[in-house]
């Protein structure tokens, strides 16, 4: 009767070298000749086939790992330290400077622990005191702990006294203060998984790396930076158990706005000083960043000139505007990437109006001239749209097939342990079966094998490109009249610019239907590239338009014949502009394709400005 159980096992017995196995009542293998009982585990494949043979045994060998039997005591912040270390390592291996890890991250983390009085202070709080007022003076003085692997591993909490209330006899293993940590989760000081990303982002910002927040989140999504199933990275002797899973388990990647908000909050908690200035040589400055997005979206290089103009006019190149300073009264952390995308959209609106009519008629005109290398919106749309659609479908596919669960499940309680492991086994078996039938590998493995690229689209003639490149195309959006260069597009539209109270939610969903489709499509494109919502990009567009239209202008010189016209040069080496008091003037839009009463009332037109020859 045991034959079918022992069938696959043909190892000779260690004592008598006979191959004659039986299964005992305790479901252990024993040699029928010498009655030697052996430790026998059934490997994966064997177990799979056992299912089909309807056998009921499932044999679990006890691990002999002493580290597992005597797990070390550890605290939640130690766990987070590991998480941060892994994330920093990953970023360094992706090419971020080593300083980022050794100096910045470590110092930020140390400051965090100090400021929340978890470590590096003379009187560390127990976890219960997380919600305590931060303003109580901490007598801590920053210790100049030289960063090394050891200090990172052993870390701060060894210095902190263990909270007495935290460890009770009920605790099987896992961190000491998890339950208290979970209780204090509402307070703004405790570390959370999204906050690890926020901390990474702040550190990246500090070293002025070219990784924007959108990039960071994409790295996380493509598993280049560890975030999902983080417990796999934590050493075995720090066993995550029970309440810990509430802290370390992740079942979604935080959104852009969440991490952004957390970063501002965290900077306040850490009490960071003003960040290094974001000047033109830093890649987070809108000028280099817009170059990147122009490349990505296959727009001609000529557009850059106009983008610069808009940045200048909106006075966005300003260091004080761009640099993050948490010490300020209302610290504002600029969303550099969304802002750069919004600048491009505003520029497109300025040049081509994007009201579903002007951009197409100008395209037809340009096409009728039969000059090949002239940029027109229609051609661009025809190249861009299929590529965009393809990329979007690819992303949908990847999202649908993304694997979230790890091979080592979280164990929340002893009661659930067997159930959790059983579920894991079932999932493993089923996946194994179906993978054999489909010869498919899960998406997770595809992610890790492909190299990360900061560009999602590739343009040009090479293999794997999404279409032909339009970068070299000439822009033809000005015309000369009486020796003065003017923009062909004479009108500019925008939605309501008045600032809503902070309690107000965004109105994008309400007005979306009334907006020109081309504009919405553009929002769609850039929101896809950045992985944010359309409303966020739209909000940033409004911000720029506000700055752009409310810019200060010196009084009009009397000699100017037409006061309503200002100058604008097409080149960056611009002459001094002749401003005028009312650059904007309310006129009804002549070609309102979808204008609602609400919109047309607020519609303004911006006269293109006269250009004097230098």
């Amino acid at each position, binding site marked *: 009767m045991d034959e079918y159980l022992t069938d696959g096992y043909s190892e000779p017995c260690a004592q008598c070298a006979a191959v004659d196995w039986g299964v005992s009542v305790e479901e252990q293998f024993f040699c029928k000749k010498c009655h030697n009982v052996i430790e026998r585990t059934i490997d994966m494949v064997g177990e*799979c086939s056992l*299912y*089909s043979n*309807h056998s009921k045994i499932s044999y679990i060998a006890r691990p002999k790992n002493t580290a597992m039997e005597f797990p070390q005591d550890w605290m939640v912040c130690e766990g987070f330290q590991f998480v941060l270390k892994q994330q920093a390592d990953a970023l360094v291996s992706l090419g971020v400077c080593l300083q980022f890890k050794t100096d910045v991250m470590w110092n930020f983390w140390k400051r965090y622990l100090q400021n929340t009085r978890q470590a590096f202070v003379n009187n560390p709080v127990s976890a219960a005191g997380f919600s305590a007022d931060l303003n109580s003076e901490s007598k801590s003085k920053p210790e100049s702990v030289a960063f090394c692997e050891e200090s990172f591993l052993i870390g701060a909490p060894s210095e902190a006294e263990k909270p007495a209330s935290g460890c009770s006899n009920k605790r099987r293993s896992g961190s000491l203060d998890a339950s208290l940590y979970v209780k204090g989760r509402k307070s703004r000081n405790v570390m959370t998984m999204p906050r690890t990303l926020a901390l990474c982002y702040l550190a990246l910002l500090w070293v002025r790396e070219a990784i924007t927040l959108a990039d960071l989140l994409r790295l996380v999504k493509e598993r280049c930076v560890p975030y999902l199933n983080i417990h796999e990275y934590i050493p075995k002797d720090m066993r995550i158990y029970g309440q810990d899973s509430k802290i370390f*388990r992740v*079942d*979604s*990647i935080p959104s852009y706005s969440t991490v952004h908000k957390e970063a501002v909050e965290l900077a306040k908690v850490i009490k960071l000083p003003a960040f290094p200035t974001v000047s033109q040589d830093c890649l987070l400055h809108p000028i280099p960043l817009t170059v990147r997005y122009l490349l990505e979206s296959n727009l001609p290089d000529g557009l850059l000139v106009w983008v610069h103009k808009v940045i200048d006019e909106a006075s966005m190149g300003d260091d004080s505007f761009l640099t993050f300073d948490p010490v300020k009264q209302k610290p504002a952390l600029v969303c550099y990437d969304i802002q750069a995308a919004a600048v491009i959209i505003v520029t497109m609106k300025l040049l081509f109006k994007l009201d579903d009519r002007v951009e197409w008629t100008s395209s037809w005109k340009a096409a009728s001239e039969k000059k090949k290398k002239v940029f027109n919106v229609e051609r661009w749309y025809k190249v861009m749209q299929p590529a965009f659609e393809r990329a979007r479908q690819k992303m*949908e*596919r990847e*999202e*649908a*097939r*993304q*694997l*979230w*669960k790890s091979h080592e*499940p*979280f164990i*929340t309680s002893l009661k659930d342990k067997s159930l959790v492991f*059983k*579920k*894991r086994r*079932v*999932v493993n*078996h*089923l*996946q194994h*079966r*179906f*993978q054999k*039938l*489909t010869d*498919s590998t*899960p*998406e997770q493995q595809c992610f890790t094998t492909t190299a990360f690229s900061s560009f999602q689209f590739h343009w040009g003639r090479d293999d794997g490109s999404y279409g032909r490149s339009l970068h070299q195309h000439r822009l033809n959006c000005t015309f000369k009249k009486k020796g003065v260069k003017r923009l062909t597009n004479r009108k500019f539209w925008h939605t309501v610019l008045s600032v809503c109270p902070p309690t107000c939610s965004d109105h994008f969903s309400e007005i979306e239907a009334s907006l020109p489709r081309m504009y919405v499509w553009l929002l769609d494109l850039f929101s896809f590239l950045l992985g944010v919502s359309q409303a966020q990009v739209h909000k940033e567009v409004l911000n720029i338009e506000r700055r752009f239209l409310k810019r200060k202008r010196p009084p009009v010189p009397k000699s100017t014949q037409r006061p309503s016209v200002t100058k604008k040069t097409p080149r960056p080496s611009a002459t001094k502009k002749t401003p005028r008091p009312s650059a904007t003037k309310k006129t009804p839009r002549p070609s309102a394709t979808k204008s609602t009463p609400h919109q047309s009332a607020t519609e303004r037109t911006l006269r293109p400005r006269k250009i004097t020859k230098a």
Partner: protein
Amino acid sequence: MDDIEAELKIDSPGNETTNQEIIKNPLHIEAPSKYYETGFHRSSRKCLKVIRDAMLHHNWQKAAEYFTSYIQTLEDTTVTSAHLTRDVIWRLGAEILHHLANASIDDFNAVYEIMKHAGVSNYAKICLEHAFHLLLNGQSDEAKRQLSSASHWRYGKLTDAQSLEMKLIHAYCGFLDYFIWSNKISTTPETEDVSSLQEISMYFRQASVTLQEIITRPGIWDPFVLSYITMLEHNNSLDEALKVLQNYAYNKDFPSNPNAHVYLYQFLKRHNAPQSALISSLRILHSAVPSHKLMLEFCSLLLKKHQDTALKEALCACMDLLEFSSWKCDRDAWKCLLKILQRPKNEHNMVKEEWAVRRSLWMAFHFRPYIIKTESQKDVRLWRIKERVLKLLGEDLHIEDTRKSPSGQRDRHHNASEDNVDGDSRRGPARNSNSSFKRDESKAAREGNAAGLRDRLTDFTHRKRPINTLNSTGQLVPVGFIPDV
């Protein structure tokens, strides 16, 4: 045609809404608007949607690929309806495997086994389905083994919750015993071997005990009853079999089941029961299913009795039968009716009464000019019988004229064009097949007097196309016209 389409268009949105009301989506495929959704849930929702679409397009390979990723939802820790998730995964997996070209029986067995033990709340159902699958693949021994092991499954309250499925497992266990027994009986006839005889009797005993128990409970147990009866007949315990069948047919606790009466009748017939018993069993069947094919036998049985009442009953049964469209062109049924009508007794009154009730329907249903024409061309033998029936019923049609009309085709064309000229767009021609008559009538009504109708009638008769006829009371009735009821 236009009208039908228009009607369908009007109806279709209504149907959709009712369907949507009926089919409630327990697993959401569309994005939730009210509550926050984690990335994991979004992934699984999108994955399920892709799988559904792939399955609807019969793209099984793709469905299997995505299903591989979808399996992870089993590990969902937040979902409250883990039971539902398991159910969905089991069903999806079985369906996809069923259609995958490279799936082997081993894969099936493995998946069924895994899902059986994944969540025991569905254990019995999955066991049953597994057994069915094995039976479909001809592995009845394996299926038997599955079922018998499943019938001993105990898991506290969960077994009680699945009592219905457990009952079914029990029943199918017995059924398979019977199956094996009957196979053995047919393959090894008259064996002298004691052990094989013992084995056969063991299967017999097991099957009979199980089946006997199962069919006493209210329900529809057709295959089980049949097999039990076969076994009893084999054992020559006919009284017992009759009792079982009578209980199955007449017990008020059981749901009404026409097959029960059929089985009873067949049993009685097999064992040469008296005519009255046969007739009474069929009479009940007639009241339940007047279109049953045994009704012809019922008629012939009644005819043997030589009684007026029996004859009348036969006439009714036969005419009832012919009123079903599936029997409309059945020659045997018409022959039977002819035989009844040809009875030389003085049942003339009876036939007249019956005919008066049914006449309008029958003229439209069986004797419309179009039907007459097609039948007289395609199935002449049937038409002969029908013609004789009609004669016996006392009707008179100018059939010969119709059949021999050389210009039938042209007439129809003419008629059709006239319809178009008439142009009553509210009533499409396809909406009601006899609408042309209605239209004639309405036109006549518009003309204001019956004289118009009569004129047109003469016109029609002039064209040798007898559309109208006189009924028994001498009134003008257009053929094929169904009076409003």
